[in-house]
């Protein structure tokens, strides 16, 4: 069998999976936001070559927040990124107050949103791969988009030439916020999926 084709098939499966994962995230987020209805539009998933990753967001110098979690066991890493603006809007809705910049509480609200979003993806992945996938403690970075994105690549230690990006649009009351989940798989994990896939 053609190795390249199999790898594509695994990537396709992961893209499919990201739809399921984000669907779960929608339910979770609604609960977290309590009174406010939060919807998530059907997400768009894509494979992004790492050479283009820094250009993911339209303005490479815009301030963004990135959180990065390594997944234990050489599985890879998972990140969640948002413009600082949208992250603060969502944190403000969660904390029910006007925020002026970042303090410990608003940072942790942003962290928790990223936790829910990435956990939904990872849990869906764990189901499909029948493995236990444990994300480690998150690191957070705030800075110009291109720098944060490139740092995600470097600090995750990824050697993969492609990453999976799931763009999610959050429908808040009177505002649409955007966020991206990024899954950076290790080749060893892809090999495991290839094996399982073949068995099916």
């Amino acid at each position, binding site marked *: 069998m053609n190795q390249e084709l199999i790898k594509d098939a695994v990537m396709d499966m992961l893209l499919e999976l990201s739809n399921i994962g984000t669907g779960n995230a929608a339910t979770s987020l609604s609960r977290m936001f309590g009174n406010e209805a939060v919807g998530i539009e059907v997400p768009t998933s894509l494979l992004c070559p790492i*050479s283009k990753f*820094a250009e993911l967001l339209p303005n490479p110098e815009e301030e963004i927040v990135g959180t990065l979690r390594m997944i234990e066991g050489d599985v890879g890493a998972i990140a969640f990124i948002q413009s600082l603006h949208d992250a603060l809007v969502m944190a403000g809705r969660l904390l029910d107050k006007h925020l002026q910049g970042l303090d410990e509480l608003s940072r942790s609200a942003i962290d928790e949103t990223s936790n829910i979003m990435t956990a939904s993806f990872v849990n869906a992945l764990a189901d499909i791969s029948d493995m236990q996938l444990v994300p480690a403690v998150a690191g*957070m970075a705030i800075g110009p988009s291109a*720098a944060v994105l*490139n*740092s995600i690549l*470097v*600090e*995750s*230690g990824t050697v993969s030439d492609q990453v999976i990006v799931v763009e999610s649009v959050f429908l808040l009351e009177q505002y649409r916020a955007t966020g991206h989940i990024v899954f950076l798989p290790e080749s060893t994990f892809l090999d495991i999926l290839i094996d399982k896939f073949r068995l099916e």
Partner: protein
Amino acid sequence: MEHLVGLGEYAIVKELGIIKTLGLGSCVGVALYDSINRVAGLSHIFLASANGREKHENPGKYADLALPLLYKQMLQQGAHPRTLYAKIAGGGQLFSGMEGPLLNVGEQNVLAVQTKLKELGVKVSGQDVGGNKGRSMSIDVATGLVIVNKAGEITTL
């Protein structure tokens, strides 16, 4: 004329123009310049070493492969080893709160770049490295002036 260099890329420009790179988080931007012969090069280094993955990888990403390549091509374009020097920026640690072996990868990248430049006999005449802010860097080919933008704070090297 502005030439944009992305992660793992490099560019060499003679006489006139600006070479720029964005997104220097833990990455290191390396500018090489020969003021007499007016040749400038800029490289965006991703990691210290390819660690045996050379065959499948873009050499421009790694300090140990990219810098010798950049150096050689600068000389081919008319730069002279005696009048060539380097300025570097980046190698920050943007992510706080992480635990594990990849802590300080920015610092490791800076060290790898400095070591390789020393091996090549190129003196580093200016640097803006470390910290936890992202940077962009440009070099003006006409003058060799390097401008570093660190989250709004401008430094010249």
